[in-house]
């Protein structure tokens, strides 16, 4: 049996806030203040990361539920994305040669099967903003162009964009 087929990854559960949507999963990492949106394929793989389901079984599950070809490379792509997003428990999965894949190769495969590229595992991530970064503020670069004089500088908490009365130059100060 292919060693990769016996891998049984586990999802991380600590310090996460999870919101299930019909076709996606939202995950907020309280430790890193990052939010992730898992598409349907990534969500299904993550949900089955229980430390008891093998990657071979996951591939079978994706075939049943989504009509994807039974291909562990698709599972490997999802697991790699979950690992990068720090959503897998430490030590339960590490990429190895057995799970090597090329995303381009997978896209080609799925396109041939009938336009299933939309089902490739995708995780969209963003770093949760600090309060001051969300609204009326300017970046250091914008301030240097004298855009947003008077607004707080999001890159420098406590500073505002000010214009020198004589030279007309602007800086966060």
């Amino acid at each position, binding site marked *: 049996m292919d060693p990769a087929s016996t891998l049984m990854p586990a999802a991380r559960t600590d310090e996460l806030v999870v919101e299930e949507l019909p*076709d*996606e*999963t939202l995950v907020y990492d309280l430790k890193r203040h990052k939010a992730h949106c898992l598409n349907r394929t990534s969500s299904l793989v993550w949900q089955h990361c229980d430390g008891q389901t093998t990657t071979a079984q996951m591939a079978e599950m994706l075939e049943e539920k989504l009509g994807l070809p039974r291909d562990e490379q698709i599972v490997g792509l999802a697991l790699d994305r979950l690992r990068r997003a720090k959503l897998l428990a430490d030590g339960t999965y590490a990429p190895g040669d057995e799970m090597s894949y090329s995303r381009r190769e997978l896209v080609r495969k799925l396109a041939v099967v009938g336009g299933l590229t939309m089902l490739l595992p995708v995780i969209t991530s963003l770093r949760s903003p600090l309060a001051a970064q969300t609204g*009326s503020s300017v970046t250091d670069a914008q301030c240097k162009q004298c855009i947003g004089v*008077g607004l707080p500088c999001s890159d420098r908490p406590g500073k505002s964009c000010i214009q020198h009365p004589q030279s007309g130059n602007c800086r966060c100060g």
Partner: protein
Amino acid sequence: MEKLDRLGWAAAVSFVSYGLRIGVRANTPEVMDQILELLPPGTKPARGPRVQLLYSVVAGGTKPRTRIRRFNMLYADAARIVRTTVWERVRDTLEMDLQLYVAENARRRVFVHAGVVGWRGRAIVIPGRSLSGKTTLVRALVEAGGTFRSDEYAVLDSRGQVHPYVATMSVRDSTGGHVEKIHPETLGWPIGVKPLPVGLVVVTSHRSGARWRPRQLSAGRAVMELLAHTVSARQQPERALATLRLAISNAMVIKGVRGEAEEIAAALLSRAADRAPSISTADSGRRAAAM
């Protein structure tokens, strides 16, 4: 803080804003009138002096019989947040800090930095930071027939409905430099008063000459776009996510680069109308006196 407490304070006020008790004290009574104009919409006087946050405003003025200008200072509790000879900086910093504190810590509300316009019983929400062009788009939508609800925050309740946040707008010129403070009532805009469900979220930025070809976002991507502008995202992520999810549950969320706001206003109202219930009185706002 004790050192600050020992200074002579000539005037003080305490108030409640979105469930938060805040106080402001000043060393001269003259500045208090200006400060009262900066308070967030919906603020009510508080009973009793106990507050969660106390601002102290020290107006420097000019030393008598000299032309020496003293520093003006602003403290939030014991922390000094600005020290300047320019009074307007203190006033502007107080306004922004206060607004941010309320938005980040409000009880029972989630604040998303966004413009909001009402149309046929639904809210059109335009998330974006300053200088992103949302004020321009808000103006275009109001002039195309919508009701003004906010230029600064979409204030969401626990059911995902958007409450009005009607405050003085800071309208910048095309370089982002000169600022004019305008209240929407003085423009004769109709002002919405009741909470509305979200019908349309428009994630956009301006690029001169751009062709408007938005794509629709999934629910998950829609929440992410709003989360990027949610003031309390780090402070209260669980509540933020749950509220945003509710807010977009019956809304269409679109994203794209736009050209001039007037060119797309009618199209946006049409899209929002597709999500609207039959016309109701929910969106009837009080008309500005000027009209």
